[in-house]
């Protein structure tokens, strides 16, 4: 089995408070993996370590048995992150947010950058809001704009931090469809951290439960459903 992402003995504490304790877990490539866990359990920390935003105290992350840095360097592996509150740059319009990466890296011509951005925006049904400021968008639109921004860098691994927090049922369904469409269209590995149980079961290839800095329960949605875990109570 091709284990694409492997957390190996990762530990992380903040001011003596242990968040991840010798954490090890693997995620297969090309799949949608959902991580459930109570708030404050370290779900965001888990994703941020993979993103490179947080340096672990110990341990390493292997991508196809290569270290993360090496994979980025040699295989030009790209990881992107959809932030919980979208984190669009408020000083820029939506379209400038989307093209920001290509603009700053000076990749391709301005015309092609815009063409690529508008293609992604229209796939996500946002093209009509391109010239607006992020603050003028609804929560659901902001989330889609954040996903669009991530897709511009053509990531191999896409991380979502509670993508449906603060979204209603309809918008949650839209995000679920985007994740499922991406899985069909691209060889992309998606890690999704969430609280939302029905959303989790709608998108997941695997579900893992993060508790006390460890994942002890992990498996296919059907298997997880059998386990009478307190976190899954809402669907019982």
């Amino acid at each position, binding site marked *: 089995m091709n284990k694409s992402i492997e957390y190996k003995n990762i530990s992380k504490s903040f001011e003596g408070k242990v968040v991840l304790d010798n954490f090890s877990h693997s995620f297969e490539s090309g799949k949608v993996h959902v991580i459930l866990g109570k708030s404050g359990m370290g779900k965001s920390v888990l994703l*941020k370590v993979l993103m490179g*935003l947080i340096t672990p105290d110990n341990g390493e992350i292997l991508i196809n048995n290569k270290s993360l840095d090496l994979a980025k360097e040699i295989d030009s592996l790209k990881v*992107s992150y959809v932030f919980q509150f979208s984190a669009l740059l408020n000083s820029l319009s939506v379209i400038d947010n989307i093209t920001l*990466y290509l603009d700053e890296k000076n990749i391709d011509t301005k015309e092609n950058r815009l063409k690529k951005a508008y293609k992604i925006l229209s796939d996500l049904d946002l093209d009509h809001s391109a010239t607006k400021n992020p603050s003028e968008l609804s929560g659901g639109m902001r989330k889609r704009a954040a996903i669009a921004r991530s897709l511009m*860098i053509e990531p191999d691994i896409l991380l979502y931090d509670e993508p449906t927090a603060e979204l209603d049922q309809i918008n949650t369904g839209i995000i679920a469809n985007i994740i499922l469409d991406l899985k069909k269209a691209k060889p992309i590995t998606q890690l999704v951290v969430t609280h939302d149980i029905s959303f989790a079961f709608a998108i997941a290839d695997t579900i893992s439960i993060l508790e006390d800095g460890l994942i002890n329960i992990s498996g296919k949605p059907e298997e997880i459903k059998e386990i009478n875990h307190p976190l899954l109570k809402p669907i019982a």
Partner: protein
Amino acid sequence: MRGIYNFFNSVGLFLNLFWQTLCSLKFFSVSIDKIFSQLFDMGNRTLPVAALISLSIGAVLALQTGIQLSEYGIQDRIGGIVGVSLCTELAPVMAAILMAGRVGSSITAEISTMSVYEEISALKTMDIDPIRYLVLPRFVACLITLPFLVIYMDLIGWLGGSFVSNLNQSISVSFSAFYNDLSQVVTFSDIASGLIKSVFFAITISITSCLVGLTTNGGPREIGTSVTKSVVASFISILILDYILTRFLILVGLL
């Protein structure tokens, strides 16, 4: 002990950010657009208030010293006194205080908001260096704006002083007498001293306000705290630095 540790820690962070900003100067040419938009913004925030402040400082300075001088019958020296005090001390310090209050505070507010709402992290996920993207344009723009502001305040302050000297009954020094004395007393090195000070102040204000913004964490409540912290830190640094720089400039014979 904790206070001493924090002080040296902050100085270390300051020097580190300053150094990294200097290193990012190699991206100067691709940042021109951002620098211009910062320059425009900084000018807008400071020029009207700076005119008001320097006009009134020049006027009050002329009024107070002019009346004193006229008691000794040497009021024709007023131009030199107003000229030197403004360009060596008052204009650079007032310009810096104004810059810290109007520009530094808004830099910290903007960047700390970006930190709190993870916009800075988002830049990092796109492999965009926040120092190059945010600090560099503000640093360069500050470095251009502040010396310019000092010259601007020198000129307007002198104007205010000459008006009062001319119009006040007990001083009554003509414009030509005022500027004649000023041009004889104020030397190039007096003006240069003010500009040298302003360069140091510009570095202090821009790096401090960016640093406080970038190191803000926690919730939205922290934004207000950070802005206050940044302005107070800039004020204190300006005042301490002013004394040190004045000593230094006297030592090297510029003052």
